[in-house]
């Protein structure tokens, strides 16, 4: 944060533009602390609120536009790429699908406040067939609300943020490195566990022929349909005896299935 303050004082709006553009382009670092620190500098009279919000919102829209165009051209492969960047890929796509099904284009107004949702909402908007003008309108509004909120919080809580910055400064560079090391280990462990799970899961896939034999046999199995509600409604059909589960029901309904029972999942 101290380094952020130093860079912001030295490079001003150019740094804000580059940093926000980089974050929106998919680099997994948060832009919120930068906007908060920028708010403190506005409070101290270094920069103007309007110019900061305009610069940050423009960079956000520009970064989002790249994903929007990629989403239009490449569709689901873009979502798969973003899932690799996300730390919670199992929930981010489903969370965004649900948000889009419920709120449509209005999702773009608040998605930047929700980690994960922000990452996949833009290509999902493109894949839903949203016209460019509508995307730009809602994304500009959402980006302005997002940057404006954090800059305003920075202005309002400038003294408190400065106290935090001073405290971090007192801890010195060593404390920052330890924190970074812990963060790196956390991210590394999380990615490794996911990689291992996906690897094991691929190995354990079942062929339709084998599943049919199992369904005709005596062994009890549980079939779960993981398609999105919208896709299931559109299709109107499912595998014989399959249960339809919503993403948010996994934890609450997991008790319905005996732990020793084989569970077969399928999607489209």
């Amino acid at each position, binding site marked *: 944060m101290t380094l952020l303050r130093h860079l912001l004082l030295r490079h001003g709006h150019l740094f804000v533009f580059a940093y926000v553009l980089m974050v929106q382009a998919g680099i997994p670092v948060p832009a919120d602390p930068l906007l908060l620190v920028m708010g403190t500098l506005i409070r101290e009279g270094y920069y103007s609120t309007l110019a900061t919000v305009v610069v940050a919102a423009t960079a956000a829209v520009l970064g989002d536009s790249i994903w929007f165009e990629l989403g239009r051209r490449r569709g689901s492969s873009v979502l798969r790429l973003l899932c690799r960047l996300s730390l919670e890929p*199992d*929930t981010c796509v*489903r969370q965004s699908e649900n948000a889009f099904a419920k709120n449509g284009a209005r999702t773009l107004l608040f998605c930047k406040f929700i980690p994960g949702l922000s990452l996949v909402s833009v290509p999902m908007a493109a894949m839903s067939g949203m016209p460019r003008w509508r995307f730009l309108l809602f994304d500009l509004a959402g980006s302005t609300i997002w940057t404006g909120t954090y800059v305003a919080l920075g202005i309002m809580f400038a003294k408190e943020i400065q106290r935090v910055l001073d405290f971090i400064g007192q801890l010195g560079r060593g404390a920052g490195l330890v924190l970074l090391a812990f963060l790196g280990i956390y991210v590394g462990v999380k990615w490794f566990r*996911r990689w291992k*799970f996906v690897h094991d*899961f691929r190995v*354990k*896939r*079942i*062929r*339709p*022929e084998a*599943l*049919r034999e199992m*369904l005709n046999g*005596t*062994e*009890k*199995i*549980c*079939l*779960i*349909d*993981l*398609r999105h*509600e919208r896709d*299931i*409604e559109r*299709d*109107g*059909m*499912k*595998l*014989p*005896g*399959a*249960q*339809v589960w919503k*993403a948010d029901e*996994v*934890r609450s*309904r*997991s008790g*319905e*299935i005996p*732990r*020793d*029972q*084989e*569970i*077969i*999942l*399928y*999607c*489209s």
Partner: protein
Amino acid sequence: MALLLWKAGMRRVRPLEGGIEEWRSLGYPLEPVVAAALEDEPGPIAT
């Protein structure tokens, strides 16, 4: 989603290769989704 099930303690989880589309293309039987299945009612356990 599969990871969520795994985290909920279910270890014997397997994905169907090719999903419902491959199942359909092989001419295997399907059944209609009743409205309740899309709401809160749990569906039957396949045997």
